[in-house]
């Protein structure tokens, strides 16, 4: 399948400051999280895909076209930028409508699309407010509405949840997931990892201007073989279960860490997830809780960013 967004050997400098260094990336449909520390090049990558910057080296493509030299390709793109200064005097509706018209729609058409988009982001009632009167959450919703109003197949969201309150965050997470489920290519950057996990299981890590890792969170974690998983298993008789488990190939260690809780260190979470309940079953025990504190995106991020391996 042809990727919807592609970067081939892309480098970008701002004076002496390196933003991106030899980045190769292919992004397909669905939601993809873009992660990395501040200053790692996430926003630059978004701007390159949006045709706002020209790479110093390499090339980027948006649905097969060069977004910088073929601006027509940008009809297929919705961008929610990180910056937060707009035409403050406009109302939400007019703002979205005006930007939608720039994509070549007639006034009536743009009005309809703007209204539908504002409804979709939950701003239907508040669309008459001026941007200057909106809270951060409303501004973020409006920003996203303007990105999706013209129904683009590719959507770039740069920190779309910043400053939004918990209600807006939950709404916007649902919205992003919905956009991905419709088959759009949604690239979303965020600093809040558990929210990324709620949107998608596919991520791209950027660090020092290079791609550090990309793929499925669960499988990426499994690739870190030098970091075995710790699993906490709650069973009635942990020592008996431990004796059984230590015989398994993928189990490295077992430890009773509290009354009724066994910590199992394993190289293969998936195998452990099958073998441990089965072993407990043979001993007529029931696993009442099974958790792995270091299998989440937060641990993966920490391991990837802190080490060089």
């Amino acid at each position, binding site marked *: 399948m042809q990727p919807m967004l592609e970067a081939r050997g892309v480098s970008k400098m701002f004076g002496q400051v390196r933003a991106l260094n030899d980045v190769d990336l292919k992004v397909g449909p669905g939601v993809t999280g873009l992660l*990395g*520390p*501040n*200053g790692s090049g996430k926003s630059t990558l978004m701007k390159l895909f949006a045709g706002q910057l020209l790479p110093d080296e390499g090339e980027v493509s948006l649905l097969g076209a060069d977004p910088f030299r073929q601006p027509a390709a940008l*009809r297929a793109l919705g961008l929610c930028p990180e910056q937060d200064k707009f035409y403050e005097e406009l109302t939400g509706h007019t703002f979205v409508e005006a930007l939608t018209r720039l994509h*070549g*729609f*007639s006034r009536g*058409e743009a009005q309809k699309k703007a209204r*539908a988009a504002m409804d*979709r982001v*939950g701003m*239907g009632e508040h669309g008459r407010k001026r941007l200057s009167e909106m*809270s*951060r*959450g*409303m501004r973020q919703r409006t920003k996203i509405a303007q990105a999706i109003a*013209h*129904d*683009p*197949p590719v959507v770039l969201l740069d920190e779309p949840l*910043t*400053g*939004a*309150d*918990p*209600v*807006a*965050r*939950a*709404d916007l997470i*649902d919205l992003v*997931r919905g956009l991905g489920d*419709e*088959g*759009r290519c949604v690239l979303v950057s965020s*600093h*809040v990892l*558990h929210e990324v*996990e*709620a949107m*998608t*299981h596919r991520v791209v890590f950027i660090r020092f201007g290079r791609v550090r890792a990309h793929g499925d969170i*669960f499988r990426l974690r499994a690739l870190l073989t030098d970091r075995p998983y710790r699993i906490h298993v709650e069973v009635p008789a942990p020592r008996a279960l431990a004796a059984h488990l230590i015989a398994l190939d993928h189990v490295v260690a077992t430890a009773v860490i509290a009354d009724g809780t066994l910590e199992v260190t394993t190289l293969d979470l*998936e195998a452990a*997830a*099958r073998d441990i*309940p089965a072993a407990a079953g043979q001993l007529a025990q*029931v*696993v*009442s*809780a*099974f*958790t*792995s504190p270091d*299998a989440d995106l*937060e641990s993966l*991020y*920490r391991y990837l*960013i802190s080490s060089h391996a």
Partner: protein
Amino acid sequence: MLLSFQGIRKQFGNTMALADVTGVVDGRAVGLLGPNGAGKTTLMKVCLGLIRPDAGQATVLGVDAVANPVAVRARLGYAAEGPGRLPGLSGLESVAYAGELCGMRRRESLLRGHDMLDLVGLDESRYRPVETYSTGMFQRVKVAMALVHAPDLVLLDEPTSGLDPESRDELLDLVVHLRDHGGPAVLLSTHLLHDVERTCDAVMIMQNGAVRFAGPLSDLRVQRASEFDVRTAVPAPALRARLQALDAEVTPGGRPDQLRVRLPAGAGPDLVWQAAASTGDAVVHLQARAASLEDAFLEAIGGRPALVAPPPSAWPRPAEPPRG
């Protein structure tokens, strides 16, 4: 008692910032939650005596904050949201200056400033002017400035906003450290419920300028024995169907790979394991579901309105020219 509010009202022009704040909260680390415009920052400023309420009483650490603002401030540290800074000063000078404003001597405040910057993890860049700092570095300086005079309570207004995961992690660890190692009590305002779950032992939820809940976090999170959070290695529709066939009530969780399972009466978690064994799915997480803070929060503020269903999409068909 850490904070106690009685009928606080404050109006700015036409907007009622605080409608009727009444509530009592105690704890080592208190999360202050609420939608945008709920009045969190205004309430913090009332605690500091920076804003004089139109009516009502605020008692902070047992002191009447409205009547004795200067006395209260001597015992409070405040890290405001936003970029308030003294351009030209280095990070260290900023912290030492904050100490001097609180009555410390010059050398005393410099030494204490070094200590606080070590605590928040700002390295040699402490000698550089603050305007060259990144968001994360500046956030650390603000927290150090709030701690320098050893207050009894620090008010942190959205300290994690805009931080990358590493910086956020370190800042939350610092709050936990303060909570557990005899530091000042913390009042943490944030939009990230996760931050509160990780660091706080009490919460105060505000909406429309009024308190919706104030009390220990444990009061909010009641365990529900028959409900489980189940996560699989990959999204597992087969498991969902199988569990439903076994009379369990299954709803999608907050993540694509997550299910919320309410077991039928009399059944135990082995039902889930058996179902997973039969469908071949790897259940990598199973835990009795505590009511998440998110649920409790949404309940406290009266739920969230449903979003409008998306309109039929023109895509993946290529968008037609507007005139069609």
